[in-house]
């Protein structure tokens, strides 16, 4: 029993980490809280649904989804989001509004119905007494890979350096011939692409409905507050803690109480470490 519990907890944590990754990149690198993030997750899931409807392979949809959503993010950044950089509070409202438009449009497109999407890797692996979902195992592995690649991209490449420079000191970055406008656009598109990937990977486990992304949004924000803004590992660490405690608490207490406990503990942690639990060094 402890093994299947551990697997389920890690598996759910992976979904939360995937969602938070994109949100965290945009929040940390651009200082924008993207309240429409859950709906970019939904767009990723919807892309997979479209592929399934057209009779194309699911895995192809999952490959295309992050790029399709990144493209939508890029267009939105160039047309709408860039006007908000000077006013972060208005940016929150603006991204929220964009999110509502996306959500209600998708709701219309799917007829308000729920749709099951089959896993590209169906079935279970039986290990002794317990059975483990192949798809959930795949998601865990992809999550580890995506986190590693994103980390290396932001920390070890020239592009990553430019992104960090644009965050630290935009004026100096501009005078060093870095086009901060372009960098912001790329960063936003990258964050949206990660959201699209999260949506594409989670939709077989949770089914497609217009409210798919909203469920994760509050948890994702809590994770970022808990982990701390401004670093790469902060939001990821926060996501791991929130995801693991959300999945683990119902094993030991009443589920209603467990739901509240996650928030209570997060608030206590934020009170004790207001800048976040993982904010020793900047990326």
């Amino acid at each position, binding site marked *: *029993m402890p093994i*299947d*519990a551990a697997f*389920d*907890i890690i598996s*759910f944590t992976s979904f939360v980490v995937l969602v938070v990754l994109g949100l965290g990149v945009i929040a940390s690198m651009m200082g924008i809280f993207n309240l429409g993030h859950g709906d970019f997750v939904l767009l990723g899931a919807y892309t997979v649904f479209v592929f399934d409807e057209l009779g194309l392979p699911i895995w192809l949809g999952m490959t295309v989804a992050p790029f399709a959503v990144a493209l939508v993010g890029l267009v939105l950044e160039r047309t709408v989001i*860039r*006007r*908000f*950089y*000077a*006013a972060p509070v*208005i940016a929150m409202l603006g991204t929220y509004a964009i999110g509502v438009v996306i959500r*209600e449009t998708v*709701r219309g497109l799917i*007829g*308000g*119905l*729920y*749709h*099951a999407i*089959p896993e590209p890797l169906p079935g*279970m692996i039986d290990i002794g007494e317990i*059975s483990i*979902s192949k798809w959930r195992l795949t998601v865990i592995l992809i999550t580890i890979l995506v986190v590693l690649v994103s980390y290396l991209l932001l920390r070890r490449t020239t592009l990553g350096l430019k992104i960090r420079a644009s965050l630290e000191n*935009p004026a100096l970055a501009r005078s060093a011939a870095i086009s*901060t*406008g372009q960098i912001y656009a790329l960063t936003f598109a990258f964050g949206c692409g990660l959201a699209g990937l999260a949506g594409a990977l989670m939709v077989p*486990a*949770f*089914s497609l*409905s217009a*409210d*798919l992304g909203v*469920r994760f949004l509050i948890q994702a924000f809590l994770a970022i507050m808990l982990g701390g803004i401004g670093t790469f590992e902060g939001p990821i660490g926060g996501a791991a803690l929130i995801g693991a405690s*959300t*999945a683990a608490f*119902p*094993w030991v207490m*009443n*589920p*209603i109480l467990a*739901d509240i406990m996650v928030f209570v503990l997060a608030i206590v942690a934020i009170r004790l470490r207001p800048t976040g639990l993982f904010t020793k060094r900047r990326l």
Partner: protein
Amino acid sequence: MSERESANGGWEVLPRRRFLSSTAWTAGAVATGLGSWVVPAKWASAADPIKVGIATDLTGAIGIAGNACANTARMMVEDINAAGGVIGRPLELYIEDTASNESVAVNNVRKLVQRHRVDVVLGGITSSMRNAIKDVIVNRGRTLYIYPQLYEGRECTPYLFCTGPTPAQQCDALIPWLMADGAKRFAFPSANYIWPHRLNEYARKVVEANGGEVVFEEYYPLDQIEYSATVSKIMNENIDIVFFTVIPPGLAPFVKQVYEAGYQQRGGRLSCVYYDENLLNFHPPHEMEGLVSCLDYFRAISDGGEHQFSADLHARYDAKFPDGPGFAAGSAATGIYRGLKMWEAAVNEAGNLERDDVAAAIDHAKIENGPGGGSEMVPGTYHCRMNMYIAVCKSGRYEIAQQSDGMVEPGECA
């Protein structure tokens, strides 16, 4: 970001003319009441139509059920008008969105009752919605209210008639049927709100009266989507029947996790009494295989051919609304049908639209035919007798497993 943008906070100054024109447009929209859907009667000479209000969740999380209700009402009003209307007057349909949100709903329903002065309101899907809007309609609005959805019972408010199934109608036959092959150990995983609490209270009595045992009854936050702890308990406690009332968004992951744990493989059964055809897409068919539901209508009855009336009705609905939610009992569409037909019969009997006269007539209203068969109001109880069907999911469709022997008593407000 450039200097110019940050100088005015990132906003371009809105030109005054554009501001004036958009303000005028907004004011006009507010004044003319953008947001209600009015389906006017088509009779050219109709000087004095009867106003029927539909308040249902066209948008939001349960928009699927709301649109099924609104579509059913649209089709029926058209049919009633084509047949000469009610007491010689045509019906005019006013549809308001309750948006799966009680505070939005109260304002929109007030609009129906106070501005449009409708003669009857049908709608509300969830119990919280019914509780939020019933006072606006029945007490302050002095209007008749018909609630169409299956629910937890105990709503005994004068002028409020319930036309969906009650716990007695859904559980009394279903639970003994589930236990017929010797299954005794039940689990009640449930969403934490009023309907599951009261339904479980009733279902537990039926289980225990039949010699079964509820091994655990557990409530989850409405948006919980991770159920590994529950699934592990279901597997370790050797549960025979999972009688669940979990709702979306947790529904899909719950059923998937139960399936992936191998519960059905080792002979376990799932049962949930709001499952209808609109939920068939919700899970891959193999995860739903063997799931048992109990409702007042399933499409399988029409397909079977013995209920020609239901089949014609369903075919007409499908032709009129080929996309979107279907005509299904768990989405309250059948409750809307019964409600509107009983109200029509009552107004024809009363000969006028006075609330007391119509309510007195609805109190003993009967309809000969409807989806799943006829139904009748049990006088003095605000609830209906109706036929009930137990259906089992097989390869992504429902098959009727048992049909009630005549109409089933609602067992409420007696």
